[in-house]
């Protein structure tokens, strides 16, 4: 798996998959931003643009048996895991055909078949759930690993600290992958994280840690790969901290006054994972500009189709209000 049918053996296919994935996310989010501004999106959304290399570099390593726990900033990670673009869009539009049948919405994208585990409402709560997925996959002995995405804000939630310790005590195959985008809502990490060092919190329970530029796909790919391989080999949990830029607000509608003037422009200029990726693959002659342009065009069409499908799709049937509370009868 790993999304969009990547054949993991071929180097350039893998590169193409990575580019396609990141570009799909970017295109999806930019388009969503525009549609939101135009009043076309009927729900609250947190955009992932800028952070694409993180989920993509991780998902490149994940197979069918692996779990990927994501956060409220869900669209990009869901795309990277290979969830259906139309189903994602429909969930954002709160339609019956959405990933969660319109009951969850943008922050709760979840696809059980893909072992893509959606965010629950509490920041950081997923860290504990991830320990449970890890218990299960180890119990089955299927060689699975679990990657749990978390934001910088989550490092200050108690359950995350507890989960670090529990994962280490039980030596679980889980990687806590932090996307440090500098902000939890309107508050900067320099204020909220004493010591301003996410990885150090992991090191305190004896976990291996790594820090990586999350705008560099290749760096993320290498670092996440190492942590995932360690977990898969029975080496227990570890922590990866990725410094990522966030190109939009905390949620759409956020005036972002807490950011310095020009901050986003500068990030877009100097820390765009797609720009870096293109430079690298073109420079090394791995892919051609024409290939990339072809991919871009195809993606634009796909996103277009996903959005128009979603906009036109039917809402959930009234009966859905009462279904899915329990698996059994009650």
């Amino acid at each position: 798996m790993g999304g969009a049918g990547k054949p993991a053996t071929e180097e350039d296919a893998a590169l193409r998959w990575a580019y396609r994935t990141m570009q799909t996310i970017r295109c999806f989010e930019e388009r969503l931003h525009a549609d939101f501004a135009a009043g076309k999106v009927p729900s609250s959304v947190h955009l992932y643009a800028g952070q694409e290399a993180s989920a993509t570099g991780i998902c490149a390593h994940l197979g069918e048996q692996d779990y990927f726990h994501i956060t409220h900033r869900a669209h990009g990670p869901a795309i990277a895991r290979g969830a259906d673009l139309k189903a994602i869009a429909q969930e954002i539009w709160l339609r019956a055909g959405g990933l969660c049948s319109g009951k969850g919405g943008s922050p709760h994208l979840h696809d059980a078949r893909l072992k893509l585990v959606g965010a629950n409402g509490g920041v950081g709560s997923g860290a504990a759930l991830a320990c449970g997925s890890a218990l299960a996959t180890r119990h089955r002995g299927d060689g699975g690993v679990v990657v749990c995405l978390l934001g910088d804000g989550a490092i200050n939630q108690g359950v995350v600290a507890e989960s670090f310790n529990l994962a280490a005590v039980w030596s679980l195959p889980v990687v806590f992958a932090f996307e440090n985008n500098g902000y939890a809502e309107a508050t900067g990490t320099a204020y909220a994280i004493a010591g301003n060092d996410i990885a150090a919190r992991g090191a305190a329970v004896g976990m291996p840690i790594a820090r990586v530029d999350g705008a560099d796909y290749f760096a993320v790919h290498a670092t996440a790969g190492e942590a995932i391989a360690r977990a898969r080999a029975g080496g227990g949990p570890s922590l990866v901290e990725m410094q990522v830029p966030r190109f939009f607000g905390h949620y759409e509608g956020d005036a972002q006054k807490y950011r310095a003037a020009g901050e986003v422009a500068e990030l877009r200029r100097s820390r765009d994972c797609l720009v870096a990726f293109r430079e690298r693959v073109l420079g090394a002659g791995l892919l051609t500009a024409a290939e990339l342009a072809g991919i871009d065009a195809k993606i634009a069409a796909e996103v277009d189709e996903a959005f128009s499908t979603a906009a036109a799709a039917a809402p959930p049937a009234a009966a859905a209000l009462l279904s899915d509370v329990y698996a059994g009868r009650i």
Partner: protein
Amino acid sequence: MSIKSYRAAIREALEQEMLRDPDVILIGEDLAGGAGGGGEDDAWGGPMAVTKGLLGKFGRQRVLDTPVSEAAFMGAAVGAAAAGLRPVAELMFCDFIGVCCDQIVNQAAKYRYTFGGQDRLPLTVRTTMGAGQQLGSQHSQVLVGLFTSFAGLKVVVPSTPYDAKGLLATAIRDDDPVIFCEHRLLYRMREEVPDGSYTIPFGEARIVEEGGDVTIVALSRMVHVAAEAVHALRAEGIHCTLIDPRTTVPLDTDTIFDSVEATGRLVIVDEAGPRCGMASDIAAIVAEELFSALRAPIRRVTPPCVPVPAAPNLEKLYLPDAARVMAVVRELVQR
């Protein structure tokens, strides 16, 4: 006197209480916002923009932004209250009680009793609640019943700007822990509100409408839903008394009893689920204490027993509306 929104009324109460008493401090996430960033300091003024402007007036020593650490900052608010301050802590969504439940229901609620009455705990927890914004199962709950169930807490559910301002002043001056539940859909509601400071005593219900056929008790935003029903029913010749208890602890049972005594019929409209919430609570109290006055079944109008769905059409079906209240009232008066 001027027209103020529910949001502005709350902000004004905070500001006036902070001016009045230097021991009033605010604690919560992004109350100002902007800490640790390169931009503006009072960048958000609260997740719902309720505390906007207070940073500039009172500074970071009294407007304390926190990390995303509800258990720690709620506990700190409890500790600060026990140590003599009057903290107002903001729990962004009441759903987040999930991560600070111990501090509220085990510590704040039981501090005084467990220690044999040695301490006062003048803590106010401001929180928001309610569905209607497509925020789904974990950002839409109404948990008034949960708070009410724990002896030691006082619980306030203002339905109007006027009440919000006066009740918040009372809450802040109160020497016990108070959970002040703001309904997010009411933030833009506007009405005449005095500019000066005033208080509204706890445990005094507001009679919103008077009528002799049916008593309706409704809470928070449901007061407005019920009021809509009451007005429409009047055109049908059915006259209801609509009571807004305003606080569930203490609960003004006198006002409810007086009305039920007269009407013999009771409907409770609540946005929480049907099990073990305020609708059940009030129904049980009346069925126990005022049985002989009842001429018909006590009816509860609540959402069904399901989590809150995100899709707008489902959410609309989920929420009680005037039509449902009217149907229930009509049925009752036929008995």
